[in-house]
């Protein structure tokens, strides 16, 4: 062989090797969320925790893709007999440990969650009397009384591998410490490493009962608490793929200009200006109505606009976001009407000049100051003087535990915990709820309470539609909150990455956080 031929052969071998290496290059997805990430599903509360839970664990049902309600997931089908729900499980599901997923695991997962009393356990507290395995793949939930939102609530009960968890229990701790560092689920991914403040690395497990997308990520690096400037720089360097939803609008606009795709997730979330209905002058419904009529919804809409194509908000027509039971698409959205505002103000028992309004916004979300400033400008036209306070979250959570210390107005985004309207309205407006930031309008209305109670036991879909429609009307009329806009959480996605579940409405899951199934994302470059 001549030297030229040897050179040619060597080059060919090198090229083939490199192309083979390239063909087997690991597909990595890099995304981020706010700190901290909790991987124990029994402690999961926020968006990051939800994303981790749906990728590491499975639930009996899952939010319905491209629609509302829920669809089968681990459960193939179910029967409802009053307060008894019987689920048949898939028989082809194994945990990442290799153990088969059976009804006993479902029972144990429920017991563990309730015994630990954290995370989403409050959604089931007082609802379930007992859970039993009536067969290897059949599980029965006996509720304390009929509870119509139960099926939807099950999206918040991930199933853990009983044998693995029990093997790692220490002094009856339900393996709490171990589960905050390791996963014991049947999801598409397992935890490779986890630092709750910095990053969770997940690797694809394979052999799953749902097919992954083409070019699904084999490794996911899910970071926490990245600064907007850092995210911007990382995206420009091609070192980050999907941003969190918490960046300032200017950063999204800049990323879009650089070639990123902007997508939004509706997620059944409303942006509410909660009015303190127990403090003068807002204990008078006419004053509240005056504020609601005067509110500049159009300007608010402009404030949510990232660029010509993408907005982080859409107008609301009531308390219920689109896609939930009780939402009426035919109703007109709210709009400013100063004449009606003055009319209502005239009926109010209080003189606005004697009652300055304190409007708080959460210090950690500075973009919300714009809403407060807008209120200050508008309500001064009604004669109110508005004092704006920038309140740290910890202080706000303390203030709202009593109406006397809570501000008159505070802007908060509230998401439904499940696709059922009950998970939103009951926590916000039922008079039995403890005073927290979700219920910080302290609204007390017997008719509404009765409807919300009725909605919990009524199982007929049409009847529930009617019940929550009536509830929505009461809320629109009594104005415990100003329903500013439905929040659309924005995400910037790097070129070469396809976030199918948000890009294609027919594939979108209706609940916040449930779209980020990593194996449904394609990483092609």
């Amino acid at each position, binding site marked *: 062989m001549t030297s030229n031929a040897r050179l040619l052969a060597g080059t060919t071998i090198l090229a083939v090797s490199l192309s083979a290496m390239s063909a087997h290059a690991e597909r990595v997805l890099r995304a981020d969320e706010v700190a901290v990430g909790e991987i124990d599903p029994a402690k999961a509360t926020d968006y990051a925790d939800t994303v981790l839970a749906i990728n590491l664990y499975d639930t009996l049902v899952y939010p319905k893709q491209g629609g509302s309600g829920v669809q089968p997931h681990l459960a193939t089908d179910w029967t409802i007999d009053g307060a008894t729900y019987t689920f048949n499980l898939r028989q082809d599901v194994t945990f990442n440990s290799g153990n088969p997923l059976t009804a006993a695991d479902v029972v144990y997962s429920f017991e563990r969650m309730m015994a630990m009393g*954290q995370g*989403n356990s409050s959604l089931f507290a007082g609802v379930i009397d007992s859970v039993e395995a009536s067969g290897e793949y059949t599980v029965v939930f006996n509720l304390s009384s009929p509870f119509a939102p139960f099926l939807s609530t099950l999206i918040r009960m991930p199933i853990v591998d009983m044998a693995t968890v029990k093997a790692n229990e220490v002094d009856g701790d339900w393996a709490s410490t171990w589960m905050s560092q390791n996963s014991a689920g049947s999801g598409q991914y397992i935890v490779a490493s986890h*630092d709750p403040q910095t990053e969770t690395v997940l690797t694809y497990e394979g052999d799953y009962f749902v097919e992954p997308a083409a070019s699904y990520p084999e490794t996911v690096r899910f970071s926490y608490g990245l600064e907007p400037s850092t995210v911007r720089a990382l995206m420009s*360097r091609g070192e980050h793929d999907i941003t969190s939803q918490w960046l300032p609008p200017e950063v999204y606009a800049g990323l879009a200009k650089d070639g990123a795709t902007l997508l939004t997730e509706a997620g059944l979330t409303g942006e509410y200006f909660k009015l303190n209905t127990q403090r003068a002058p807002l204990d008078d419904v006419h004053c509240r109505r005056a504020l609601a009529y005067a509110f500049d919804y159009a300007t608010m809409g402009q404030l949510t606009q990232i660029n010509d194509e993408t907005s982080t908000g859409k107008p609301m027509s009531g308390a219920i976001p689109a896609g939930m039971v009780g939402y009426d698409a035919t109703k007109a959205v709210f709009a400013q009407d100063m004449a009606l505002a003055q009319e209502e103000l005239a009926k109010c028992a209080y003189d606005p000049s004697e009652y300055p309004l304190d409007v708080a916004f959460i210090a950690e979300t500075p973009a919300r100051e714009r809403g407060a400033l807008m209120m200050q400008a508008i309500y001064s036209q009604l004669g109110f003087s508005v004092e704006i306070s920038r309140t740290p979250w910890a202080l706000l959570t303390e203030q709202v535990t009593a109406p006397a210390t809570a501000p008159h107005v505070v802007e908060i985004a509230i998401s439904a915990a499940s696709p059922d309207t009950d998970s939103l309205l009951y926590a916000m407006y039922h008079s039995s709820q403890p005073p927290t930031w979700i219920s910080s309008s302290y609204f007390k209305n017997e008719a509404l309470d009765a409807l919300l109670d009725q909605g919990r036991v009524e199982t007929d879909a049409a009847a529930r539609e009617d019940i929550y429609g009536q509830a929505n009307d009461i809320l629109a009329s009594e104005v415990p909150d100003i329903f500013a806009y439905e929040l659309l959480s924005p995400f910037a996605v790097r070129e070469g990455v396809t976030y199918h579940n948000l890009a294609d409405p027919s594939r979108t899951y209706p609940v916040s956080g449930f779209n980020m199934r990593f194996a449904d994302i394609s990483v092609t470059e």
Partner: protein
Amino acid sequence: MSILNRFLGRLLSSMIVLIGVSMLIFFIARIIPGDPARIALGPRATEEQVTQMRETLNLNEPIIVQYGLFMRDLARGDLGISLYSNRPVITDLAEYLPATLELVLFAGVMMVAFGLPLGALSARYRGQWPDSLIRVITLLTVSAPAFVWAVGLVLVFAYFTPLFPITGRISDAMTIPHVTGFLLIDTLAAGRFDGFLSAIHHLILPAFALSLSGIGQAARLTRANMITTYEQPAIEMAQAYGFSEARIANRFAFKPSLIPSLTIIGLDFAALLGNAFLVEVIFAWPGLSRYGVGVILQKDLNAIVGTVLIISATFLIANIIVDFLVSILNPRIRLSENRS
């Protein structure tokens, strides 16, 4: 007084300071608004669940009893579970402290390596253009906080000219066994020189951002002290003897001027720990300062006390070291301490 006795004396007084700090922070943490149980469990938690967690955390006990229980657990090396990370606070501290210390120490080295020579250079050429240039630069570095520099450095060296990494402590592709938590040590211990270089590469931008203010301060202080020293008769005498300018600067002007700078650098160490927060956030540095702010916002009582105690201890240790260095450099201090 022997060096050992002096060391033990400083150690004892530091222990007393730490106990005082523990009491102070324990009570202050409980004054911060917000119910830690409610914050941890979220707004949908039932009253029963909140009550149960308050009992678990002993929050219903009188504050003195709570402090007694805390000290009892601390004596056993148990700082409780963090509500922020859901892990033992000790685990968090062990994981995050080395990252911050490595960053702060590297920044400290930069402070000394750049600050003192710049100050000496400025004093050596006082009144001339190098002096003016250094004074302008150091004034700029002192007047802007570390996070402004951090963002600026990211913009210049990571966004426009991507020369440095901007997140993390080491390349994602590398896995280094955790021994000390100091990656510069662990990489060498593992025989991974490529890892060592990667760790240095990741350290440069955040440490430089963190140290810039200190560099300016050290330079300005060194310059001022050296100019005062230059006016001493000893310098005039050295010049009369015909010593070179470089020798006069190094031997007769720089060394005596070092002592106040060193003391300030010791104090700056505490400032570095504080300023590290925003730098850690911007560079996604998995450190203790970032953790500290996170736990305060979450009102995670156990973690707040643990973090403040560990930062206080680090600060005290740094100051003991500086005191010893100063006494070594300045014989008058050493002699006066020996006499006392």
